[in-house]
């Protein structure tokens, strides 16, 4: 049936064409993802302009957002045809051809608080994840080609692609980023994520203005998935035409100028204009001077209350009717107290909110759906809160416990997971132990490892550890007879529920381990993590198979791709080849070896499955990451006024949050 209809449509189209109508882009006739009008898309709901025109048989006439009409008329902005690249990316909107205008409203706790959606509404990267089947589709890069052993990848950029200030975006911007920012030890002391795959920083070779090659030390089959998911937040390019003047390698006076302007040195000023985490730059007025390729650009200097973006006139995508994307004119994000979000959401004052919303607010949101004119869904989320004890804690009186598998196992089985899931996560999560998601090599037995609620076993283990003496309040003391208290500092960003620490502390007190609780900021947590003084870290994100391959340190020392979760001195030791830090125990070394071997293996092979299974086994045997709840759904509120919002398949940090939901083609109805 579908085929016949498509054929019919083609005939109709052909008829229209021969009748002299300018192509398939007449209003109401344009192709969408839901009804492609016979257009054979090569990647998800997008297609290169040349292929699109070849299929429709006519030239696509591009039109710009009327928002820019004044600037075009005054001559300060070139016409839309001059602004768009030759190689335009044509997007078939999900439901309908959108209309221009509107402001997309969001909310976050504060700048840089890990609570913001606004970056994922506008960000772009070389490639993008298509969330329907987790495949990789082109974005800024038009195409790419791997060599045979997947150590080298050559990207082709779009000819005529321009930065938001009208300057050309070329391979030079990528080369500048690799050679002068990432490989510059002063600017980047430690290369992050998959960019140092095989323990050597990526190398880049420029072929011509549109073509360049990345070369890795080892086969890197998940590289594209990395830059589409957990690496999506860090773009592999930088505006060299703006940044070179601040870079000491390019400008002799850079240092003097920076010092004169009141900065410590050129690096200090450079970091104001460039930060791998883009939204750190938009926080300052400097963000206004830095062009971008994203769908929206910073509209005014960010203040303590709000952050504003406006459509990028040079954005490289058009819809199937020829309208330049994005449809939505403005993005506005307000910084509000966490508790105020719920009130704003139910009043219909926020168009999309998902990050860091407390799951317990779901009933309230659901009851007010009609009033607030939005739809709330429970997306497939990530893991619930996890607990990682710091084995190498600088307070040595606690190492006997935190560095003991027995202690960590006892803490795990002291937790009543079914009750926790029922009371804090609406009964919707599972009770799995913490481990990678969606991998073929994990077993049910592994997922159930040390998750059964067994206070007797916990007590026995703690007794065996020598913690038999009790203080006046009945709490266990350390074997040497000193008071023992877990001092647990937490941030609500990671606990997911304000009651989570209270409940866990109750479970632990019930087996005689006293807990002191203190809520602190995420910033302070990270500071203490790096100083090795934090007792419990919760900043571990569930890796998917591709993350595990791309960033093996998520699942081996130091158990984080960005910071340190536990064992900071061990990581220092390994990174400095023994010059600094503390020599890690044998199992940590072994785990690291397995993780590295795994990251170089080809997905699906026996070697991959075997190493993956070992990786999980070693982590579980040592009870590194104590999981409390698995697959906790993520609340997602989407205004009913928005069109073209795909149904969310995956809503997780390591899947790029809303980035893969194509906010550039969302439109107000």
């Amino acid at each position, binding site marked *: 049936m579908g085929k016949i209809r498509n054929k019919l449509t083609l005939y109709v189209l052909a008829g229209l064409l021969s009748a002299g109508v300018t192509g398939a882009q007449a209003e109401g006739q344009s192709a969408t993802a839901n009804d492609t009008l016979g257009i054979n898309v090569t990647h998800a709901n997008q297609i290169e302009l040349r292929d699109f025109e070849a299929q429709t048989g006519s030239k696509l006439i591009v039109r710009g957002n009327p928002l820019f009409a004044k600037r075009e008329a005054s001559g300060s902005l070139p016409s839309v045809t001059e602004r768009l690249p030759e190689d335009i990316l044509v997007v078939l909107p999900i439901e309908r051809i959108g209309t221009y205008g509107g402001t997309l409203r969001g909310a976050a706790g504060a700048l840089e608080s890990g609570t913001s959606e606004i970056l994922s509404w506008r960000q772009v990267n070389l490639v993008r994840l298509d969330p329907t089947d987790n495949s990789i589709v082109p974005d800024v890069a038009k195409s790419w080609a791997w060599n045979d052993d997947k150590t080298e990848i050559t990207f082709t950029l779009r000819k005529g692609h321009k930065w938001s200030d009208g300057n050309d975006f070329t391979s030079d911007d990528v080369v500048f980023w690799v050679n002068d920012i990432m490989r510059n030890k002063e600017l980047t002391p430690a290369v992050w994520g998959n960019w140092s795959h095989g323990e050597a920083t990526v190398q880049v070779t420029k072929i011509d203005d549109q073509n360049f090659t990345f070369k890795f030390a080892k086969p890197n089959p998940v590289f594209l998935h990395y830059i589409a998911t957990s690496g999506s937040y860090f773009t592999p390019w930088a505006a060299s035409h703006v940044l070179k003047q601040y870079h000491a390698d390019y400008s002799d006076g850079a240092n003097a100028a920076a010092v004169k302007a009141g900065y410590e040195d050129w690096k200090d000023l450079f970091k104001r204009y460039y930060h791998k985490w883009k939204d750190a730059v938009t926080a300052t007025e400097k963000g206004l001077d830095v062009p971008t390729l994203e769908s929206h650009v910073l509209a005014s200097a960010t203040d303590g209350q709000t952050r504003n973006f406006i459509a990028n006139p040079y954005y490289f995508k058009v819809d199937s009717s020829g309208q330049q994307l994005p449809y939505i004119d403005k993005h506005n994000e307000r910084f509000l107290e966490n508790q105020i979000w719920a009130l704003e959401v139910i009043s219909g004052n926020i168009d999309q909110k998902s990050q860091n919303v407390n799951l317990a*607010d779901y009933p*309230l949101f659901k009851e007010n759906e009609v009033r607030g004119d939005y739809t709330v869904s429970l997306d497939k989320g990530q893991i619930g809160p996890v607990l990682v004890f710091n084995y190498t804690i600088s307070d040595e009186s606690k190492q006997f416990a935190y560095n003991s598998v027995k202690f960590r196992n006892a803490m795990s089985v002291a937790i009543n997971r079914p009750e926790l899931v029922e009371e804090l996560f*609406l009964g919707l999560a599972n009770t799995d132990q913490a481990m990678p998601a969606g991998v073929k090599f994990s077993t049910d037995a592994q997922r159930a490892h040390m998750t059964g609620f067994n206070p007797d076993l916990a007590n026995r283990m703690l007794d065996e550890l020598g913690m038999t003496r009790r203080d006046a309040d009945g709490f266990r003391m350390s074997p040497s007879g000193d008071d023992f*208290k877990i001092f647990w500092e937490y941030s609500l960003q990671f606990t997911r529920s304000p009651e989570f620490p209270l409940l866990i502390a*109750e479970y632990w007190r019930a087996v005689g381990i006293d807990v002191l609780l*203190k*809520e602190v900021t995420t910033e302070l947590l990270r500071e203490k993590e790096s100083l090795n003084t934090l007792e419990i870290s919760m900043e571990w994100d569930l890796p998917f198979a591709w993350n595990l391959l791309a960033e093996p340190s998520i699942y081996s020392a130091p158990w984080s791709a960005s910071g340190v979760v536990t064992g900071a001195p061990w990581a220092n030791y390994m990174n400095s080849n023994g010059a600094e830090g503390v020599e890690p125990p044998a199992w940590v070394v072994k785990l690291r070896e397995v993780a590295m071997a795994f990251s170089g293996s080809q997905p699906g092979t026996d070697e991959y499955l075997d190493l993956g299974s070992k990786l999980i086994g070693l982590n579980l045997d040592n009870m590194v990451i104590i999981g409390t709840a698995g697959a906790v759904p993520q609340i997602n509120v989407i205004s009913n006024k928005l069109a073209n919002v795909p149904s969310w398949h995956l809503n997780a940090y390591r899947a790029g949050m809303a980035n893969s939901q194509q906010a550039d083609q969302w439109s107000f109805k």
Partner: protein
Amino acid sequence: MVSSQTTIGINPVNRLDLATSRQLMWYKFRRHRLAMTGSIIILLFAIISIFPEFLTPTGPQIRDTKYTSGPPTFVHILDETYTPHLPFIYGRTITRHPVTLRKISRVDVSVRIPVRFLVRGHKYKFLGFFSADLHLFGTDSAQVHLFGTDKLGRDIFTRTIYATRVSISIGVIGVLAAFIIGLAVGGLAGLRGGIVDSVIMRLIELIRSIPSLPLWLGLAAALPREWSALQVYVVVTLILAALGWTTLARRVRSKLLTLRNEDFVQAARLAGCSDTRLVYKHMLPAFMSYLIVDLTVAFPYILLAETTLSFLGLGMREPMVSWGVLLFSAQNVTALAHTPWLLIPGAFIILIVIAFNFFGDGLRDAADPYSN
């Protein structure tokens, strides 16, 4: 008794003419209805603070996992057909709404759970010394939750009663500490005068000029994180006292300055009275009543300060429960919309603050018994 005998005489003497000043104060205070009500409420709160373990059916950290986020279970004496029974509560079950997933409590009128008095329940240390398990009321099977439960199933009634002890004792200790500091410093300033007086007065002005909220925030943030809830409790009390003594010190000083030149003081001084004796024996009693009024006014101030600090998450911490800590957990929209009973502790605060204000009002009127 004296007055009743004298009224028998030929010339009936008004009992007021013979009453001591203390008796006069009492007569006057008793006529103040609101003040009497206030003092009864204060007395009740005092009793609650002493016996929370006995007055509550469970413990502040004990979770009723079958009844989480549950509304208050009212105690009935009439069933649905208006047949009288001994006090009972209906059986209740908590389920989730199939669509909104909200917790809903269903009343099962076919199940009546009798509420008994003086029942044996969970063990506690009475006054911190004697092991006991007797509770004023309770049930055999399902729990009675007069004020409902929180998200973890903890009984709000029990927690509010326990919090009364913490909050009231902070008020009492804080006020006493402030009283002692105020008396000593104000006394010193008033008695010595001169440079000592000037320095102390400038110090007081300095302390009073600091905006209180930022100061609390700063002091509370400076508390070492490793401290236990009890240590924090003591220090928070002292911080509040350290800020609360200034009004009292000024009052003491100004009174001393006025009294210093009174004839009876001069007489005492000429008779060779020591300074200390002069103050405590002759001057203090002359304005003690004013100080007591000040104390009663200072009490709600310190109580509210503690509540504010804890509400902001800077004062008391779990597992210590104060009224502020209880309200802290109610400060989100879902809690307000779906579990409004979490706000009941707020009513206690209002009640005690009003009671103290009435009480202070009555005292103020009574403090000068010769005025009328």
